[in-house]
């Protein structure tokens, strides 16, 4: 069976959920071989094996943290060469984070392959893997293939339900020699993002978002309280972010995060096309807005026309009492 290279997104050995989704999708087209780089790479092996990795190629070096993107491209290329030399390689899959897409793009040029970004589904086809993409703010669905080289495909978070499928997950050290270009862009300082204790926005099953209607940073506690009652992540519209009420890392939309949760609750958000681009594929959509004409209501499964400062706290109380 052909192998599928899966690039592992992890933080100090803790594998992020989109990678487990990738392993699930990879098994549809071949045998997953995972590539884990940087500090803690070896600690990823157990969970990767549990989810179907037949092999885990690992490598750690200071370069991964000290320089931008290129060292990881060099390593993924080394993995590509090692695996394709030994047999047939069906595809290279990379999580669709900003960095993941950049790594995938540069690898694609180096190995003479086409690239598909932001796939939301993947299946085996007669002429290689077929990727589903959402286009034009999710108003279209396309199916595409890579027609030259080994398909390089990046996949969005929440594109598949994670399934366990125990495999060997044998750890092998990957030999990497960095290119001259690897040290081109130096990371001179790094400030880790503060943990909020809430689920990661792109991975959360429920997202509760607030917009301009929230009318002030201090009022975002109304949104946060609802989120906490549901165990949800908090999102924000760009208007709320631009006003400085909530961090940019929580922005949902074209230039923020794109989310695809089971449930999305928008409060005080009008539903501009750029916001919709980031949340339109949510399974169930709920909105609270005092303007009955707001475009967000075109998308909803359930909408409440009303003042969010009345509706949201009542909802939160009701959820708490039901959960008892």
């Amino acid at each position, binding site marked *: 069976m052909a192998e599928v290279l899966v690039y592992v997104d992890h933080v100090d050995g803790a594998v992020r959920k989109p990678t487990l989704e990738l392993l699930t999708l990879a098994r549809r087209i071949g045998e997953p071989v995972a590539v884990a780089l940087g500090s803690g790479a070896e600690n990823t092996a157990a969970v990767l094996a549990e989810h179907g990795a037949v092999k885990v190629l690992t490598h750690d070096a200071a370069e991964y943290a000290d320089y931008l993107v290129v060292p990881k491209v060099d390593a993924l290329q080394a993995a590509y060469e090692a695996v394709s030399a030994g047999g047939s390689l069906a595809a290279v899959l990379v999580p669709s984070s900003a960095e993941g897409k*950049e790594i995938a793009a540069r690898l694609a040029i180096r190995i003479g392959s086409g*690239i598909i970004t932001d796939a939301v589904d993947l299946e085996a086809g007669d002429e290689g893997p077929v990727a589903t993409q959402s286009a034009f703010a999710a108003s279209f669905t396309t199916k595409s293939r890579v027609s030259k080289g080994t398909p390089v495909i990046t996949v969005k978070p929440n594109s598949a339900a994670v399934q366990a499928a125990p495999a060997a997950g044998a750890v092998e050290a990957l030999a990497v020699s960095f290119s001259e270009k690897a040290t081109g862009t130096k990371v001179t300082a790094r400030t880790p993002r503060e943990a909020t204790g809430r689920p990661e926005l792109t991975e959360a099953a429920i997202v509760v978002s607030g917009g301009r209607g929230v009318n002030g940073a201090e009022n975002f506690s109304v949104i946060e309280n609802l989120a906490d009652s549901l165990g949800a992540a908090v999102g924000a519209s760009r208007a709320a972010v631009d006003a400085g009420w909530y961090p940019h890392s929580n922005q949902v939309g074209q230039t923020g995060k794109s989310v695809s949760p089971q449930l999305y609750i928008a409060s005080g958000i009008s539903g501009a096309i750029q916001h919709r681009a980031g949340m339109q594929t949510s399974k169930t959509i709920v909105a609270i807005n005092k303007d009955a004409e707001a475009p967000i209501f075109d*998308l909803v499964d*359930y909408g409440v*026309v009303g003042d969010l400062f009345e509706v949201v706290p009542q909802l939160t109380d009701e*959820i708490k009492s039901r959960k008892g």
Partner: protein
Amino acid sequence: MSLRIVVTVKYVPDATGDRHFAEDLTVDRDDVDGLLSELDEYAVEQALQIADEADDAEITVLTVGPEDAKDALRKALSMGAHKAIHVEDDDLHGTDAIGTSLVLAKAIEKAGYDLVISGMASTDGTAGIVPALLAERLGVPQVTLLSEVSVEGGPTGTVKGRRDGDTASEQLEASLPAVVSVTDQSGEARYPSFKGIMAAKKKPVESWDLEDLEIEADEVGLEGSWTKVDTAAERPARTAGTIVKDEGEGGKQLAEFLAGQKFI
């Protein structure tokens, strides 16, 4: 020596219009107005600010696109860029990201550059990969997704910036020449002034075709693409949901709905 900045700008269908695909599954450009990708306005803005800080700088805006893409160049020129290059060729229709990056890289090399500035992503394809592809092709550092950027020391100097990632915020630094991309957090783009609009009409716009760039027709276009779109289908409209007016019980009604859907 003058700091040579090339800003890559894309001409895209208006996101607020009715965007769709043509029969050959490329973007239908006939039925919807085009414009300069809003995210590339931020790239033009940062180029203007970097030029202001430098002793001497020249900003060239570059687009690869059909005839109408000149509109995108005019807009960038009216914001204050100095000159423009339009790569236009019938054989470019349907080019994918790898092909686009080839054309852009050849044009950037031909134009001469110390710094390339791109947007974080186009507003139609939204892949966000062209800047990385350009850095790979040009063999220069990529300093991408910056929400803050500055250049010191002229054409042989350094570029510094801040990249706000998923798990951390990073300070980056590289020597020129380099490829930079900027986010919409980098600073509001200026509106063209009347004077700027008038001045833009007199600024030079060069047109290059594939031959000028020594690119063969089969390296680009639909045929030359390394990806193939098999189908494009409009997503079925969402079925009309329930909408209630809050008359004091809106939150409770919503809770009832969520409970029915097993979210509570």
